[in-house]
Each structure stands twice: as C-alpha cells, then as structure tokens.
C-alpha cells in the first residue's frame, strides 16, 4: 500500500509540531524517520495512523493507495502501530495482549482459537518470550514490554506497519535479530513500513529510504547512501554520524578555519568545516595538503574501532576513528603531536554549502 501525505501541518496550541509535510511512501518500502528528539516523528506517524488529526486545511490530504483516508478512523486503516511508550493493556496477560487484534476481528475473518494460539506462540518465539505468556505487563522488564508491543502490532498482519522506536529498549543482539526479521517480513509480505528511530546506524542499515526531520520539517529524503554521502543540508550531515565541526570565517574568497571563532557571532560571514571522524587520517608529518596540528588526548581501544580524541592548538576537541589495523600501523601515542589530514570534508558558509577555497 502506498501512502501519500500532502500539506500536512500540526499545531499544539501555538506550537508548530509539523510544518507542511509532503511525502510519499512507496508500497512495500521500508522507510526510516530519523530526527532529533522533539522533531515531530511521533506526531507524523500518529497522523499517518489516524491517531492524531492534522490541522484542517483545504489542501491537506492523506492517501492510502490513492484513496483519501483523512476521514477514515484508525481501526479501518489496517495499520499496525507500535507505540513509543508501548501502551500495553494492563489488565491482559502477554498472551492476551498479542491475541487482542485477532480476537476483535469480525467473526467471519476471525481465526480459530487454535490458530490464534499458534500465531501468538510463533510471535512469542520471535521476540524470545515464550516463557512469559502468562505474565502481566507490570511484571515485565522494559525491553520485554517493548517486544510485546511489537509482537502485538505484528499479529494482525497489517498492510502498513508504523513503528515508533520499536527497538529503543533492546540490546544490540535482539535488536539485530528483530531488524533482520523485519527486513525479511518486508521482503516477503511487501507491507509498507515506516519506523522511527533515533539510531542513525540502524536507519542506515535497515531502511530503503530515510526521511530526516528537523523542527517539524523534512530536511532530506533519500536512500541511506544519499543521505549519508550527499547530505542535502548541514543539519543532515551533522545528524548522521559523528562529525568534527570547525568554526571559521569568510575572508575575501576563502573560508578561514585556523583560529577560534566565538560561536555567538551569528551566521553572517561565518563558515563551518565538517569532517567525519573516520575521514581524518593521522600523520606524524604535515604533508602537502591542508593539515591540522593536534595533540593526542585520549585513546579508546575497546570496541570494533579505535577512537582517538585529540586537541588542536585552539583547544578544540577533535575525534578520529581508526580501524584497529590502521591504529596499529600509525602507532599513535598519548600526548604526541600529530597532523590530521581530512580525506573528505564539507564546508558550509552562511546557510549554504561552500564550494570555494578554504584554509585550515
């Protein structure tokens, strides 16, 4: 089922939570909604589900498979919704929670008791909670509740799956497993899914498309590669993954970054140099191109990559990520003076990308 949102806005009192959103979700696509806390992700998802009404507006419209659903209620939209705060039924056991959607189906579509049981047990197995069918939500840990919320939404095999941070409280293991399963479900059933996440890695890994939101507006829509490698705005660049930001100023035709610029100065004639930590190489000599002298401050070797924190002459903190291999090659030592060479970087001046020259 394809979903189209046209001119959707939402205000709470005089707070604009969504500002004129236009977006299309292809049938069978898995889309990630990515954005900082409070950017309107939940609100958008709730509007799609029909749990919240968008501001009334002549042009506003929501289409499911080209049919407008603006006035059709939640329970007719056939959406599975995983709530950010779970919204489990307190008075029902885990089993009853998951079975609920099946049990309320119209009699002629309702599966038999045994089928319901089998289905629920299958889902319980999926979320690794077979032994807890008889528990009440209050007797579950946070992650367990989240898994039940997920299983409950999946039970009804909806055409559209809306997931509000469905894995937020889960550890990497279970998360990876459920993620894979979600991907597979997708590829076999061709449901249209939208999931909210605050974890850009997850978005990049799982989604077909990523929608980056900020302050109630959409900053960029694109494939994971697009948003990561060609961020449309400075915000997207900063939001997707760690970034070292150097503040500089525009002087004549160059962006100058070799001194500290107070942040308070406003955006006029200022420039920002953005370099991802893994795009910096550490060298013991400056070399030919632009290089930033810095001092090694802290090295974290635990984890799949080595994180090196350095401090430049202006006392700015700089992060560099290396593979264990290259780390072993370069032999960085604490407090050593080194040179950082950006392999790739972006410069933004005023509000646009800067294509001119720059000096570090």
């Amino acid at each position, binding site marked *: 089922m394809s979903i189209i949102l046209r001119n959707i806005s939402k205000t709470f009192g005089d707070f604009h939570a969504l500002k004129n959103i236009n977006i299309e979700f292809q049938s069978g696509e898995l889309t990630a909604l990515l954005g900082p806390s409070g950017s309107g992700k939940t609100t958008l998802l709730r509007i799609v*589900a029909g*749990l919240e009404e968008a501001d009334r507006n002549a042009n506003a419209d929501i289409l499911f498979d080209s049919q407008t659903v603006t006035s059709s*209620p*939640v*329970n007719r939209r*056939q*959406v*599975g*919704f995983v*709530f950010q*705060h779970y*919204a*489990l*039924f*307190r*008075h*029902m056991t885990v089993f009853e929670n998951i079975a*609920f*959607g099946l*049990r*309320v*189906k119209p009699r002629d579509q309702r599966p038999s008791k045994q089928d319901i049981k089998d289905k629920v047990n299958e889902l319980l197995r999926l979320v690794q909670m077979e032994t807890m069918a008889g528990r009440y939500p209050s007797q579950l840990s946070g992650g367990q509740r989240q898994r039940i919320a997920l299983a*409950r*939404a999946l*039970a*009804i095999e909806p055409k559209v799956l809306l997931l509000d941070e469905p894995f937020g409280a889960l550890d990497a293991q279970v998360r990876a497993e459920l993620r894979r399963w979600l991907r597979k479900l997708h590829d076999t059933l061709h449901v249209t899914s939208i999931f909210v996440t605050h974890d850009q890695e997850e978005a990049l890994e799982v989604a077909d498309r990523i929608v980056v939101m900020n302050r109630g507006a959409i900053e960029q829509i694109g494939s994971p590669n697009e948003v990561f490698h060609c961020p449309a705005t400075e915000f997207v660049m900063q939001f997707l993954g760690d970034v070292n930001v150097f503040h500089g100023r525009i002087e004549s035709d160059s962006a100058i970054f070799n001194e500290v610029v107070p942040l308070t100065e406003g955006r006029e004639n200022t420039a920002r140099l953005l370099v991802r930590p893994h795009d910096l190489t550490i060298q013991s000599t400056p070399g030919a191109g632009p290089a930033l002298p810095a001092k090694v401050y802290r090295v974290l070797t635990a984890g799949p990559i080595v994180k090196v924190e350095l401090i430049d002459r202006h006392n700015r903190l700089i992060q560099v990520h290396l593979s264990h291999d290259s780390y072993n090659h370069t032999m960085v030592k604490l407090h050593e003076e080194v040179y950082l060479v950006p392999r790739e970087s972006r410069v933004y001046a005023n509000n646009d990308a800067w294509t001119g020259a720059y000096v570090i």
Partner: protein
Amino acid sequence: MFINILRSTDKRPGLNPPLIVNMAITVIALGFLFMFVIMPLIIVLKEAFSAGLSLWWASITEKDALSALRLTLLVAAIAVPVNLVFGLAASWALAKFRFKGKSLIITLIDLPFAVSPVVSGLIYVLLFGLHGWLGPWLGEHDIQIIFAVPGIVLATVFVTFPFIARELIPLMSEQGTDEEQAALSLGASGWQTFRRVTLPNIKWGLMYGIILCNARAMGEFGAVSVVSGHIRGETNTLPLQVEVLYNEYNFVAAFAVASLLAGLALVTLVLKSIVEWKTKHG
C-alpha cells in the same frame, strides 16, 4: 498471613509508612467507621433481633414485607441497569473527550443529589399528577404513572442517577486514552475497545458505582414515599414498609426489615469477591 497485620499491602521498602503510622491510620479509620457505621449497624441489628430470631424471621416473611421486598428488587433491577447504561455513556463522553461546557454537564449530573428527596418525588407529581402537565392526558388514557410502579421506578432512577457516572468520570479521565488508541490501531471497533479495554480498566470503580447505586435504589425512602401511594402489598417498597411498621409502633418488625436492607451490604462483599476471583482465574 497474620504476620502481615497492619503492614502495608505493597511490600516495597522505603515508601511505606512505619508500622506506627499504619497503626494510627487503622485506629482513625476504624474509629471513624465505628462511630458512624458500625455502631448504627449494631443498633439496627440489636433492635431487629431484640425479640428473638423467630420474630425476626416472622417479620421479614410477613406477606406485606415479602411483597415489599419483591417490589424493591424489581425497582432496583430496572433503575440500576438504566443508570448503568447512562453512566457508561456519560463517562465515555465526559472523560475521554475534551469539549466546551463539560463542567456544566457534570454539574447537571450531580444535581439530583442536591435535590431534597421529597422534592425528587414532587417533581414527578408535578409532571404526572392529576393536576400536573401530563396528568389530564394520562387520566384520559387511564395510564397510571405515579402511585404505581412506574412512578416509583422513575423517582428511584432520578435519585440514583449520578452514582455510576460520577464514580467513573474521574477514574476514566485519570487513565487517559493510550490503551484505547492501541486497541483501535489493532482494528478493534469502538464497542470492542470499550468493552475489552476500557471496562476492565475501570472495573473497580464501576463495581463501586453499581453497588452504591443499587444500595441507594433499594434504600431510597423520601422520593419513593411521595409517589408510592403506600398501598399495602402493592406499592410499598422495603423502606416504606419499614416506615409503616415503625409508625404502627411495631418497632421490632421495622428494624427487622431494615436489617434485611442492611444485609444488602453483604452483596458488596460477594460481588467484590466474584470480581476478584474472576480477575485471578481468567
């Protein structure tokens, strides 16, 4: 079990008051109930049985008493369900939605309580009485409303009108709409959502509402007295029967019948136990 006496029902440490505070609460609560409920109950029972068990039994199995009991049960059996339906509808509309004029509606729901019982009966006399708005028309068609069962039912419905709604409204608004939204998103219809999600969450409040409504429906005297006509064996409810007996200087029988009504409090116990049992066992 007995080790737990006076301990808090929830065993989480730190939050619960020390034993001495629990003791004080218990003493105050029991003292208050003792002064205002238990002692009056003892008085009623003492008077009821003052002439022995057999006279008590004779009093409550007397013909008029039995017919009064039947009428009382009938009236409650109509008034309680009717107000139950209203209470559920009203609390749904008033607790789960926000709209203008809500406080006014709630106030109007409270109103029947503020009306003196006699007046509660009187208003139906003013409506359906011989000189009331509808009286002449009813007379022509030989329809008897007041001084007959319909009038008694109406008066009872009026005086017990707010109970269930008012019990549920604060509870329901407290619980918000999260779970209802979840149910709807799972495809449940409005009615299914209400029955399977909302109702179980308010079951205690609902039960108290029904119990209170029922108790009052059975115990109501003033309003019913005005519209009953006091015809023996026909339009006397138990409370009216009590009055009749009392006014006939038949003190013991009056209290015997009253003790029957007091015994209705036991219904609470039974009902609550049933609900609890059901919660536990599916």
